[in-house]
């Protein structure tokens, strides 16, 4: 078990600007975590620091167990797929995870099935629609049976129908026990999918609360302004 993860005074600087400013929090297993904030608040950078794609300028990311290899997966806003069949994209990830060759196809098909893409297994991944591609990216992440699934604005590029499909898949993974950590600026989505909220404002962690608490009684003026900005009738 690699959770809970502790963020200690995480700081990230780029181009002379402070993108993240001493973010500290503890994130445990169980509730799905939504990282909320305006564009440029530092959500993507925070996720990448946790996933290990970036190194902090200061501070640390401390997982409960040192060996986090292959226990995390990440899905990006735009799915990056190889010029191969849908199935081959998943088996490629399984190969990297050193899943034995004999099992790869079976596990991959199961993953495709879990997102409803089994009929498209031999289709070239790049000819799939935006929503289908994102589902494929999710299936690929799911096939690795990660403990933590990072999602960086996974539906920001999709239409409402596709968005609903993706949210359904995410909820299914959540129900199956995978820890969801998702960045979004879509408040409705945050409410639908999240159990707890980390609210970032200009690189600082301003609030960390349960989702209902956050939306009904935001503790900070920045959070209030943000919610009102997105939902002015609240």
């Amino acid at each position, binding site marked *: 078990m690699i959770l809970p993860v502790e963020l200690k005074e995480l700081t990230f600087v780029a181009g002379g600007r402070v993108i993240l400013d001493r973010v500290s929090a503890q994130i445990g297993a169980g509730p799905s975590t939504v990282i909320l904030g305006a564009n440029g608040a530092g959500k993507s950078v925070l996720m990448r620091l946790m996933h290990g*794609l970036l190194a902090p300028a200061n501070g640390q990311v401390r997982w409960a167990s040192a060996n986090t290899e292959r226990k995390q*997966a990440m899905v990006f806003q735009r799915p990056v797929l190889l010029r191969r069949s849908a199935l081959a994209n998943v088996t490629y990830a399984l190969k990297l*995870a050193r899943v034995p060759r004999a099992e790869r196809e079976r596990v991959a098909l199961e993953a495709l099935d879990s997102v409803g893409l089994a009929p498209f297994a031999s289709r070239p991944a790049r000819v799939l629609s935006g929503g289908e591609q994102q589902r494929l990216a999710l299936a690929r992440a799911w096939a690795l049976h990660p403990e933590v699934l990072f999602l960086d604005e996974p539906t920001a590029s999709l239409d409402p129908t596709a968005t609903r499909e993706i949210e359904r898949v995410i909820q299914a993974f959540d129900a199956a026990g995978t820890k969801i950590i998702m960045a979004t600026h879509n408040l409705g989505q945050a409410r639908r999918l999240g159990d707890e909220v980390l609210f970032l404002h200009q690189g600082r962690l301003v609030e960390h609360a349960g989702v209902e608490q956050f939306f009904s009684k935001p503790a900070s003026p920045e959070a209030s302004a943000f919610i009102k900005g997105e939902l002015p009738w609240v």
Partner: protein
Amino acid sequence: MQGIGDALGGALRLIASGDPVLGGIVLLSLAVSLSAVVLATLLGLPLGAALAVGRFPGRHAVIVLLNALMGLPPVVVGLFVYLLLSRAGPLGELGLLFTPPAMVIAQTILILPIIAALCRQAVEDAWAEYEEQLRSLGASGFNAALTLVWDIRFSLLTAVLAGLGRASAEVGAVMIVGGNIDGVTRVMTTTIALETSKGDLPLALSLGIVLILLVIAINATAAVIQDAAQRRYG
């Protein structure tokens, strides 16, 4: 203008004649240049990919040097290889001078920088798109680069065709290391040079047109393959 028309007619007559001597020269030209392309591709693609994703001190200088080597003068390469393979030189024992393998070696050296440099650029551009996802899945630097090379293989075809164009067009290198020996190392370009120096300009021009038609045919075939693959893999 009339000269070109005559030469075009001459070229078609040459092709239609089925002259075995010309046929032998054409086959040797293809064998030498295609072999050089295959070798330069096998060496150049990994080299370009490694340079694209690797980070080491002096990397920028190496890239500049590689780009500059695209302009290696064929006659200089020929001279260099001649001095290597001459009996008086370090590799004289191999007895390769004035044989087709020597010509393949010289042309491989000539076009290796072209293929490697163009591959480096293409992979570096694609790396910006693929890097995070590949690293998230656990693909390590060089392996990820090779996966990328395979994924953008149809774009790399252009680099390979550039190498083929350079190889089949050059005369300086093959003339020096091959010796333009009748029936042994005489290729299209050296034959054109010979006929020009004998003053038989119409024949030289016709042979030149045959060579150009040949290269056009190869490029057209490559374009068809590229199109079909693009449609298939997206």
